[in-house]
């Protein structure tokens, strides 16, 4: 490890790996920092396939997908700091000083640009207001995935899964394949949270029932979980009295959402979005602080690792270009109108290649036969017809924004 770098990337999951790779390929001297003892992030435990369909046109497992970036990054000769925890980042000499805690002690390194690729965390039982006892046997889906796929431990015989996000569905299949009985996947909303293909291949293939508008309201058991209480929920997501049923089980698995992890970003005053809980960014994944970039699930939780990597590639390239030549940005807000719930980026920088911007959208509801439209000062820049739009699925739009005026609107027609 050296004392100074052009770019320091924090996090060696899919976003960080591709960001480091792309920054390095674009001429930057890069250090990638990871708190675990090896790269790959959550992909290490995502042993199911389906990764890489967009990026490589192949169906890879998580570890295979990560391997490609890891090998390519090694080939660039970039420095790596694994088992390294970032204690502090502070602004210094028109750059950033990063303090790392490592086995060899404390180290400080300085960098011209930063890329935050810190990923996200799972929501826990307390965050979804499950009351009752606190026995063992209540896990997040990611924890169970880590136990089974990395450690070879089998934590469940009779499991109930709360939440129908993709991780919950994938763990339902994994537990079934490993011989557990999965009693059902319960979803408080009136529609499933995960991709339709995962409902089909993870639940239907294994005859696992999916219960909508029902949630777990209580855990029961002294040492080990013995049962959960399930209740119907109304349109306001409130439990309906008189609907309680007790389901005997030894494990409750929570797949109830992911929260971008931005403690480091907040510590250096990066402005976060109230909606995504991640940094506000422009189309180059540069945050509202010049020279600080962010990519992947710390910006906004994605459904596909391919999009996370794409983010990283964009951020890496832009960080390398920032290091070569700082330019004053001219940021234009992206306005979300009719039906658009989330849009990343939230800003477009007019001064840098608005010719090929990628926008990631999420609708606020499910729709059929609509058109997504990008407009600037009444001029239509792009339209895309969509047969079905699921609010659970990200829509990726590649747009030529070179004709952009003083504002950009994105809407459903």
């Amino acid at each position, binding site marked *: 490890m050296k004392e100074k770098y052009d770019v320091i990337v924090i996090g060696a999951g899919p976003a960080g790996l591709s960001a480091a790779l792309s920054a390095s390929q674009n001429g930057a001297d890069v250090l990638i920092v990871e708190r675990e003892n090896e790269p790959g992030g959550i992909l290490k435990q995502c042993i199911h*396939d389906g990764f890489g*369909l967009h990026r490589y046109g192949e169906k890879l497992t998580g*570890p295979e997908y990560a*391997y490609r970036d890891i090998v390519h990054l090694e080939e660039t000769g970039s420095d790596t700091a694994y088992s390294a925890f970032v204690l502090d980042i502070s602004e210094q000499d028109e750059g950033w000083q990063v303090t790392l805690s490592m086995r060899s002690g404390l180290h400080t390194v300085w960098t011209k640009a930063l890329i935050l690729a810190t990923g996200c965390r799972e929501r826990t039982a307390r965050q979804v207001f499950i009351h009752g006892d606190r026995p063992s046997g209540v896990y997040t889906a990611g924890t169970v995935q880590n136990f089974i*796929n990395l450690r070879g431990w089998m934590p469940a015989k009779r499991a109930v899964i709360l939440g129908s996000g993709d991780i919950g569905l994938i763990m339902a299949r994994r537990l079934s394949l490993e011989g557990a009985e999965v009693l059902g996947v319960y979803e408080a909303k009136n529609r499933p949270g995960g991709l339709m*293909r995962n409902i*089909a291949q993870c639940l239907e293939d294994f005859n696992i029932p999916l219960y909508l508008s029902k949630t777990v309201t209580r855990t029961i058991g002294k040492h080990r979980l013995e049962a959960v209480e399930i209740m119907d929920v109304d349109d306001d997501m409130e439990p309906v009295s008189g609907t309680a049923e007790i389901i005997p089980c030894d494990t409750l698995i929570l797949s109830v959402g992911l929260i971008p992890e931005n403690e480091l970003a907040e510590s250096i005053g990066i402005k976060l979005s109230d909606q995504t809980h991640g940094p506000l960014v422009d189309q180059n994944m540069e945050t509202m602080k010049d020279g600080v970039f962010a990519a992947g699930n710390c910006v906004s939780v994605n459904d596909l690792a391919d999009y996370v990597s794409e983010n990283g590639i964009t951020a890496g390239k832009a960080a390398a270009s920032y290091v070569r030549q700082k330019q004053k940005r001219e940021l234009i807000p992206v306005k979300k109108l009719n039906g658009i719930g989330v849009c990343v980026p939230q800003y477009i920088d007019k001064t840098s290649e608005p010719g090929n911007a990628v926008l990631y959208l999420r609708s606020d509801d499910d729709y059929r036969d609509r058109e997504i439209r990008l407009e600037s000062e009444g001029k239509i820049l792009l339209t895309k017809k969509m047969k079905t739009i699921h609010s659970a699925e990200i829509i990726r739009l590649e747009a030529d924004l070179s004709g952009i005026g003083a504002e950009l609107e994105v809407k459903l027609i």
Partner: protein
Amino acid sequence: MKKMICIICPNGCELEADDEEHVTGNLCPRGRTFALQELKDPRRSVSTTCRTVFPDIPVVPVRTEQEIPKHLMKDTVRAISEIVIDRHMRIGETVAADILNTGVNVVLCTDRLKEVDHD
């Protein structure tokens, strides 16, 4: 007429297929191929783990190189759980050939066994 969700890509098209090979609802040709295969011989790829003798890496991810008949998924996972890897192996190497006489090999999905310690 059979309804199904296409599992080939994240689009998850809602397909309808009949015995006369009429397929509707697919956004791309892969959907048609999937639907016809699903009608006559549903197949899935299987990803699971198998054990190793290495204490730092007790299990490693493996997958079937091609798809296997859907009804053999659980038996395949059970058969793979009997395997114990006791040597250094590279990503993509065959862990088990012709699993359950399907003609399909099971391959290693990680390169972590390249140079792992025995104790």
